[in-house]
């Protein structure tokens, strides 16, 4: 993370893989598989949002689904009312960002500690879930969109070319657009993390007191990081809504928040690739387990979470990275070269 993004070969590899998947997958794979992968892409964006604020801002949000759901509902309501999807997509970023800033103001300017922070974010998501669940009656509608309570909002418009509501994207194009979103967000986050702002937020993660003594406004930084994470989760929510053409309160549920946490934990906190890998791996696993009737998927998710905390607290990517690095150092040693930086002066 210390070197500039443009000089990190890993960055180019990731972008190249992303571009390759984006252009080759629709040609190679059949429609059903494409639609399956689209789901992973959407959820990866959601995973990235938590991976960013947790790994690079030290903010552990237990209610990230609140932003996901807020984005989804914003998009649904706005697109049904406007009949277009371009502005709603923007709104799905702006409104969760503003909500994140407002909530962040209360939490960070109140200097809540980690435990309190986790509880407050969780409770916000819970209350949001409860409120939406109780909007089943016809009196709860915004414009021509009925909120529908636990029944959800059906027939959300499919994404279309900006400015032309009749030019709907087919599943292959939608996959490419979403893949583009994921790539753009990944690249933007990489640059943000390498910028001055990103470095300060990492230093806050490492040591809050020291950063504030060096003159940085810890509270302001945390609010901004939290709001950006909220906005990204909001976009993921909007993508989810238009992908499914349907949204219900499950998108705000505790299970959704927990899933995001598990993906980031499994992939590795403090990386951006980790959350994506964790998301794809565990979603695939859940899908496989879903075909087995005996095992309850929530129980499995819970068990994975506990095992991860106890056995693999660092996550897949950092563990693999340190193993590889360890192997590299061993290999160097066996080939008679000194390890860089450890040359002893005579």
């Amino acid at each position, binding site marked *: 993370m210390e070197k500039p993004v443009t000089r990190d070969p890993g960055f180019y590899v990731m972008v190249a893989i992303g571009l390759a998947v984006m252009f080759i997958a629709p040609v190679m794979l059949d429609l059903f598989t494409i639609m399956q992968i689209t789901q992973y892409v959407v959820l990866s964006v959601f995973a990235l949002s938590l991976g960013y604020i947790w790994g690079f801002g030290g903010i552990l949000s237990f209610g990230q689904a609140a932003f996901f759901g807020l984005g989804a509902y914003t998009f649904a309501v706005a697109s049904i009312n406007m009949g277009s999807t371009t502005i709603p997509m923007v709104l799905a970023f702006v409104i969760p960002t503003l909500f994140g800033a407002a909530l962040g103001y209360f939490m960070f300017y109140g200097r809540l500690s980690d435990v*309190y922070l986790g509880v407050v974010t969780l409770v*916000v998501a*819970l209350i949001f879930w409860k409120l939406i669940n109780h909007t089943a009656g016809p009196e709860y509608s915004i414009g021509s969109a009925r909120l529908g309570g636990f029944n959800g909002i059906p027939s959300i418009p499919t994404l279309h070319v900006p400015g032309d509501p009749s030019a709907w994207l087919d599943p292959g194009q939608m996959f490419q657009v979403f893949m583009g979103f994921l790539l753009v967000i990944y690249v933007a986050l990489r640059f943000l993390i390498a910028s001055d702002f990103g470095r300060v937020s990492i230093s806050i993660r490492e040591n809050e007191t020291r950063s504030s003594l060096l003159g940085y406004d810890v509270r302001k930084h945390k609010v901004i990081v939290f709001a950006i994470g909220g906005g990204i989760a909001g976009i993921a929510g909007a993508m989810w809504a238009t992908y499914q053409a349907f949204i219900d309160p499950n998108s705000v549920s505790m299970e959704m928040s*927990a899933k995001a*946490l598990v993906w980031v934990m499994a992939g590795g906190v403090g990386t951006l690739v980790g959350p994506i890998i964790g998301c794809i791996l565990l979603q695939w696993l859940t899908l496989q387990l879903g075909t087995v009737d005996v095992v309850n998927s929530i129980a499995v998710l819970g*068990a994975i979470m*506990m095992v991860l905390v106890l056995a693999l607290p660092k996550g897949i990517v950092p563990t693999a990275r340190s193993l590889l690095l360890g192997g590299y150092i061993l290999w160097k040693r066996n080939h008679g070269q000194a390890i860089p930086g450890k040359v002893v002066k005579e």
Partner: protein
Amino acid sequence: MDYTIVVALEMVRAVAWLVLLASGLAIIFGMMRIINFAHGEFLMLGGYTVVISTGHGVNEWIAMLVLAPIVVGIFGVLVERLVIQRLYGRILDSLLATWGLSMLMIGGVTMIFGNSVTGVATPLGGMSIGAYQVPRYNFVLIFAAIALLLAIWAVLKFTKAGLIARATMQNPDMSEALGIPTRWVYMATFGIGSAITGFAGALLAPLTGVVPTMGVNFIAQSFITVITGGASVITGTLSAATLLGSISQGMTFLTGPVYGDAALLLAALVLLRLLPQGITGRIFKKSL
């Protein structure tokens, strides 16, 4: 006049409800600074203990007052030994682990008992205040909450175990240096906190019915009460419950139960902005 009495009674019941929900959690939090995210499922376990034991012909009062605390208490000690004790000093990890436990319990209980609501008959029936009918069970709740707080206070204040517990709460390192096995104190605390939670879950079962996912409905209220109250177990729980209980119940009277919860959260957020360490972090600092 009658209406005023009924409203006042409902207010007191709401406060008692929050006290019952939050006490077990507050004990664990006050002592170990850990929020048990599986708290709702511990309540659920207490409820299921009542359902199963009354189904086997056990008297419902024995099931509620004796069996539920014992079963959930033992379960709590097991959880502490197997999971929590490995995570001391890693507060966030312990939150994640208990959340995993919560989902594991929801899933597990669903697999065993199915995802349906089991009702428990409300004991004692109703009584009338003027033109209004009030369930007698409300008084049981209020009485249980008062008794629970008094019992915790008496134990902490007047017994050797309470002294050790307070010492560990105030300064774990110093207590360890004086020869107190703090790890065992933590284990006992977790067990007792779980037992109280089981007791609360058993008492709530007749009002709400029992279902694997019932915990979700209570955790928001319990967490908020505990963190608004702050680290002092009794004063914190009581002051936060009184404040939040009356706000949410007042809101419920005006608009309905959904907004009551939202009002509770909003009040708690504003309060935490003003008093980040909870009520007892600023006021009543020296209290229990």
